[in-house]
């Protein structure tokens, strides 16, 4: 059986998992369903518990409470070596005393695979990551990118049920990172492996994953596709974590059948949809705001403001526009040659389409 033969991908179900380091609760009630063949990302800042969750799936760290099910079988109490869950470590963890060939063969030797088959499979795995000619080297003779590929080959050669990647790109330089991202994604498609990827970089998670879970303080804040999370964050943490956003604290109240959001300094924003009243925040992306629009923007909130700051980023210009006494609204405008760039202290008119306003509770 070749490595590339599609195997039946597995489903992973995590039920009410808690992990504590002594008194510190690192994971508090994680529930998650990861579908067969899915490329799933755990996204969160450092200390959010994302790595702990990944390590719990591999069987490292303190014994978790709750259940971790692969195709319905609870693996939470199994030792790491009985799980058949492949993990690529952040620092690659290649054994410096063994050659590339020996490193990659290790898992097959532990599985008592016949010698001839080991050689074939190692060769195939090395081929797959494009490094078949490096089999005789030691890890210290490889570049960071090569080590990364060997670590990947060492894991997939055993045909694990799951592929776990712990910030695998964080030790690579920027160009290589983009290249590896694409390569990993291609490889995952080819193998049809259910894969979990841990990262703190939202761009990385957006570009590589089918779906992701955003974690903070040991709790899953939201699960969804990158687009869903970007467009419909459920709270201010998710909104902030996934890209630049405007966020203004406000109170929602009903006025003549429409919901109006009242913020400090007399700022009022009518919503396109009805929500229940109460405290919260209004969230909208900087690029959804237009500045001194020539045509009238339909169903939009009009605001007068003064340019407070500007950052020229090349393809876009980002303005901070002061509206009222207390509020700065970030505005991002496409830029091309000849297009006017507003100056600081210039009076401008902002238009925010009502459909772009999202009311979240904190």
């Amino acid at each position, binding site marked *: 059986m070749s490595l590339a033969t599609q195997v039946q991908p597995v489903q992973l179900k995590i039920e009410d998992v808690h992990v504590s380091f002594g008194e510190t609760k690192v994971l508090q009630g994680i529930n998650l369903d990861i579908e067969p063949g899915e490329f799933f990302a755990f996204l969160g800042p450092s200390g959010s518990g994302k790595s702990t969750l990944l390590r719990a799936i591999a069987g490292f760290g303190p014994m978790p409470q709750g259940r971790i099910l692969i195709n319905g079988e609870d693996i939470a109490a199994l030792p790491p070596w*009985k799980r058949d869950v492949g993990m690529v*470590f952040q620092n690659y963890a290649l054994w410096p005393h063994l050659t590339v060939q020996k490193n990659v063969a290790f898992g097959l030797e*532990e599985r008592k695979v016949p010698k001839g088959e080991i050689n074939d499979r190692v060769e195939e795995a090395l081929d797959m990551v494009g490094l078949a000619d490096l089999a005789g080297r030691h890890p210290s003779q490889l570049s960071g990118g090569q080590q990364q590929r060997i670590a990947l080959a060492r894991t997939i050669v055993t045909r694990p049920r799951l592929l776990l990647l712990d910030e695998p790109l964080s030790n690579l330089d920027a160009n290589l990172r983009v290249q590896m991202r694409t390569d990993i994604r291609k490889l995952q498609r080819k193998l049809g492996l259910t894969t979990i990827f841990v990262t703190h970089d939202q761009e990385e998670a957006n570009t590589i994953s089918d779906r992701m879970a955003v974690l903070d303080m040991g709790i899953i804040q939201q699960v969804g596709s990158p687009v869903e999370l970007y467009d419909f964050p459920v709270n201010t943490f998710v909104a902030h974590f996934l890209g630049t956003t405007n966020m203004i604290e406000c109170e929602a109240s009903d006025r003549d059948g429409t919901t109006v959001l009242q913020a400090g300094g007399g700022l009022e924003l009518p919503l396109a949809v009805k929500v229940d009243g109460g405290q919260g925040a209004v969230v909208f992306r900087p690029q959804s705001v237009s500045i001194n629009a020539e045509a009238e923007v339909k169903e939009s909130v009009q605001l007068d403001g003064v340019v407070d700051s500007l950052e020229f980023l090349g393809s876009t210009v980002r303005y901070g526009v002061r509206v009222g006494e207390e509020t700065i609204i970030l505005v991002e405008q496409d830029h091309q040659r000849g297009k006017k760039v507003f100056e600081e202290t210039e009076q401008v008119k902002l238009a925010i389409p009502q459909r772009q306003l999202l009311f979240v509770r904190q």
Partner: protein
Amino acid sequence: MPRVRTSYLVASSLALFLIVFLVVPVGKVIYVAFQDSSTGALTLVNFVDFFKTSLFRESFFNSLYVAGMSVLIASLIAMPLAYFTTRFNFGGSILIQTLGIVPLIMPPFVGAVAMQLLFGTNGSINLLLNDWFGITIPFMKGLNGVILVESIHYFPFILINLSAALNNIDRSMEEAAQNLGSSGMRLFRRIVFPLAMPGYLAGASLVFLKAFDDLGTPLLLNVNNMLAPQAYLRISSIGISDPMGYVISVILVVFSLFALWGSMLASKGKDYSGGGKGTAGLLKRDMRGWEKTGAYVLIIFLLLLVLSPHIALILLSFGTIWSFAVLPDGFTIAHYAEVFSTTREYITNTLLYAGIAATFDVAFSVAIAYVVLRTKVIGRQWLDYMATGALAIPGVVLGIGYLRTFNDINVPFVDKPLASWWVIIVVALAIRRLPYALRACTAALHQVSITLEEAAENLGAHKTTTVRKIVVPLMAGGIVAGFVTSFATAAVELSATLMLVTSESDAPLAYGIYVFMQSAAGRGPGAALGMIAVVVVALGSYLAHHFIERNKRLQANSTGQ
């Protein structure tokens, strides 16, 4: 869970061994010191007797004086050397590094007698001084001799620790002080000196401990009014029941523990090495012409001083008759021939004993390091404490403890008391050198990233497989270094051996040197044996260094950095 049971099984057998061969004998010694020798009741009367006897009071103060003065002289040698290498771009640094190693490859007692022929009242130097200037200097008279020998041999402890401390100071510390307007001596006193202090104290307390506990050097220099020789002489002449030997042992242990504790306290929580961002090491500058000349003169003088025991030993081992003369009358290889033909068992015994002890030490150390660093066995730290605590137990004390504890235990088949069976010498050597091997193995295991083990487990390897296939091979450099260090130092250990050797046929090299050096006629062969010991230790130290460096390179290149 089977793996939990295994780790407890390993941990408890390690603990049992340490308790039987370290804690119980030392405990016995302490207990006897507080026991009335006729009634067996607990009492302080032995200590009162000790301080009432003028010889013991004198010995006590002599030992303190010798240890203190050794620290002082060793500091005077080490400080300028450390200063030269860390403050200046100086070509002589390589010489200084050599200076830092050479003395350590020869145990002090080996060179002690030879030193008398160079520095004694009728030694080469004084004969020359008398000829040229009509004066003599009592370098080797009484306690002076012990102080000279100890400080020449142990100053590298200060040099190494102090240089490391100075080199670890982040350069930005000094630059920040300069930026805030500090310079020169004031900067040195307020910033550099306090930052280097922990390193200095760590080295100084080791020198104190070594000089305070040393038995061989004073015995060979015939200085008996010190604590360690008194303990040995009381037990060997009056007998195992004499309480004074035990009282002295307790005092030795207390001071050793105190020195060890001091050195740990000095380095604890004061790891001033930079956060990794800045450049380590002080600002260096080139030496001016006259500074360079002065530095070289001083270094060559110190080099000669430090090499003098080696020079003297070589002369003595090849010399025919050397008495009241600057150099021996003639040269011969007869001493070496004699040693190899008549007393070969000293050498074979040494290789056997030190080999077994060192093998045992590394096996033990790997197990202890693994249990302490990688398992959750309750009380695992105590294994480390016990094994490291052996550092604070002078050889004399361990010897007395073994004699007292194991004299009544007969070994089956051999029909001898355990205390006089040769194996007990091996056990004593193993216990004495365990801290060295343990330090090497712990350092090696610290360098093995835990993810390397997790990666193996992740790929299906059981804990024991992981230890065998990943952990031990990666620790190999440290294990070899630990073996060689234990071996080389066990090969020249004298103080415990002296207490435990019951027949010459069971005796190792160090004992042989001691016996030969007792008589004027035996000095030549004794020196020849000494040279053999030096070669063994030098080879060992070189190999240990080689393997540590190789391991460092291997580890530095791993884990994708």
